[in-house]
């Protein structure tokens, strides 16, 4: 297994922040999915959310990112609501990987680095960390699902944002991929970053808080 110190891109320090969620209720299509959910995510923390399909893991992540307005409760990044703070603090990995099928990882990651004002120098070390550096010039349509996921994780890390929201990050990953994901998350937490991941897989992240969302219905 890759150790956390092997991922060592030269990146500016993270602007760490605490995420506080209190009394959150979320409904989709008239069905209440999450009721009175509270959470405090300090720098360095990791949360693994599990629960059967349809319990609102993705909905919760989308609410934290400010895409969905909660029915009740409060989400705060420091003192700011998601609408004002999400773009400063969030690294986002959704259902989809955000890759264009005719674009290579090199072009895509350079674009995201430019768009978010980050240095392109971190691209190669991070790709090496996820073991996809040899695929850098292959169009995304010719990458496997797991390779696409790894590339998307590189994009999350490249954004240099302190709070990562990951929706099924390990879904298509093999054992080696999961180990590299764990190393990437360990590296991020060691820098003061924090992670919330919705997952069906048993991810072995040290000192990660586990939340069963099925219990919040």
């Amino acid at each position, binding site marked *: 297994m890759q150790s956390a110190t092997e991922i060592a891109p030269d990146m500016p320090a993270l602007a760490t922040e605490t995420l506080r969620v209190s009394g959150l209720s979320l409904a989709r299509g008239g069905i209440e999915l999450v009721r009175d959910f509270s959470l405090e995510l300090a720098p360095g923390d990791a949360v693994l959310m599990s629960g059967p399909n349809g319990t609102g893991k993705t909905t919760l992540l989308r609410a934290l990112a400010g895409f969905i307005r909660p029915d009740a409760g409060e989400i705060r990044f420091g003192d700011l609501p998601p609408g004002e703070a999400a773009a400063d603090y969030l690294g986002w990995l959704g259902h989809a990987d955000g890759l*264009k099928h*005719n674009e290579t990882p090199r072009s895509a990651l350079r674009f995201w680095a430019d768009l978010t004002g980050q240095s392109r120098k971190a691209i190669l070390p991070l790709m090496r960390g996820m073991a996809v550096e040899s695929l850098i010039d292959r169009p995304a349509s010719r990458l496997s699902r797991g390779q696409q996921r790894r590339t998307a994780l590189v994009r999350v890390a490249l954004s240099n944002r302190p709070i990562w929201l990951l929706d099924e990050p390990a879904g298509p990953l093999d054992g080696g991929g999961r180990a590299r994901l764990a190393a990437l998350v360990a590296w991020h937490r060691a820098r003061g970053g924090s992670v919330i991941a919705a997952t069906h897989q048993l991810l072995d992240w040290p000192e990660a808080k586990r939340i069963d969302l099925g219990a919040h219905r």
Partner: protein
Amino acid sequence: MNALGAVFAREARLAWSGGGGAAGPAAFFLAAITLAPLAIGPAADLLSAVGPGIMGFAALLSVLQSADRLFGDDHGDGTAELYLLSGVSPAWLVLAKVMGQAAATLWPLPVIGCLGAMMYGVPVQPALIGALALLAAIPALSLIAGFAGALAAGIRRSGLLIALIATPMMVPVLIFAAGAGRSAFEGDERAVANLLLTLAVSLGTTALAPFGIAAAIRSRLS
């Protein structure tokens, strides 16, 4: 590279590498103006009279033809969420995106419009004014198509919805753009006025549509 420049360049690059670049709209435009005379009939004076109007109308259709992909793809592959979280103002970002796409795919329209009008028997000067009007109309047409596409993003068979939303909004720019070529052909001094009005509609659309597109993207994600 600054963020908006990066969006513009990426859209242009993606349009070339996967979408065939300018070939799609150009082929559609050519097909439309080639078929129209077969339906209208061979009367030379009739063809030269309708030429400027057909050019404007066919250009509008060829812009609409790819409207579902512009924001529909972003919605499906997760790019839209990342855009909203990028920290770049969404209205500026979508403006750069639509303009990047338009620059890469729609540049042949004025050229084909000018040559097509001459093939219909329109003299050179009115044909050129018609082409200028098409050029002035491109920002308005592509932003309106983008707005409709963003509203319909992620809906199955979005083409129908896009046509219903975009067609009425494109009426003013079509009237002015086609009117410029037509007045020039008739030797009417209103040609320049029509050209300026086309430009005015494009400028107004450029100022307003990006906010509408950004709001549409946000609402399609919630």
